């Protein structure tokens, strides 16, 4: 599979998520980690962007980072898949390459 992109910044603090979504190619995956997990939450202006992005990308979010921040799974945007660190490893192994959006 093509690229796995990781995004670790809040969408309200930096343009990193935008930058990644604007460039990630169809069929790629995006994994939201660390402060990037806020992008996966329902009820924010980012939700629409996520729904739009899922038409061409698979979106994942790291569960332990969600839990740490008090973000419950039922508030995750529908269609975004929650993974644990093992799932992160699987994603990295399944994709040809990993690009970290630092």
């Amino acid at each position, binding site marked *: 599979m093509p690229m796995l992109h990781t995004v*670790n*910044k*809040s969408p*309200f*603090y930096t343009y990193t998520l935008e930058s990644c979504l604007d460039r990630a190619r169809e069929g790629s995956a995006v994994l939201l980690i*660390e*402060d990037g997990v*806020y992008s996966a*939450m*329902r*009820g*924010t*202006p980012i939700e629409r962007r996520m729904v739009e992005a899922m038409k061409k990308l698979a979106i994942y979010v790291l*569960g*332990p*980072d969600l*839990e*740490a*921040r*008090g*973000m*419950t799974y039922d508030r995750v945007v529908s269609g975004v898949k929650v993974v*644990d660190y093992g799932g992160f490893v699987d994603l990295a192994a399944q994709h040809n390459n990993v690009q970290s959006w630092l």
Partner: protein
Amino acid sequence: MSEAINDVGESVETGESAAGKVKKFMFINRKSPYGTIYALESLEVVLISAAFDQDVSLAFFDDGVYQLVKGQKTQGIGIKNHSPTYRALDGYDIEKLYVEKESMELRGLTTEDLLVPVQQLSRGELSKLIDTQDVVLSF
């Protein structure tokens, strides 16, 4: 938080040399927790400041409002959950906690989602409050 609290003894002594002056200290919190350590270490300064009998306020806006979200469970990331300390601030006579309404709304949060009682101010009210402070600390 343990070392911050232990630290108070030493600090109180220093505080006495500054005795008499009471300034308005505002701690600005604009960053989310855990991704970086600023939220935790900011809280350590807040606790110390209590020992100096200053007029202490905390402002939470932008991603800083995320610091106060309840239900933080950090076992999975292996980092200590420091959020209970916000509930302990009251015991240090630190009671002026302000969140910005606009920052809350943008993130889909209400005061129901927060782990401590706070005063919610509009952007304009909060900015006005910050402008009246003597010392503004950002981390």
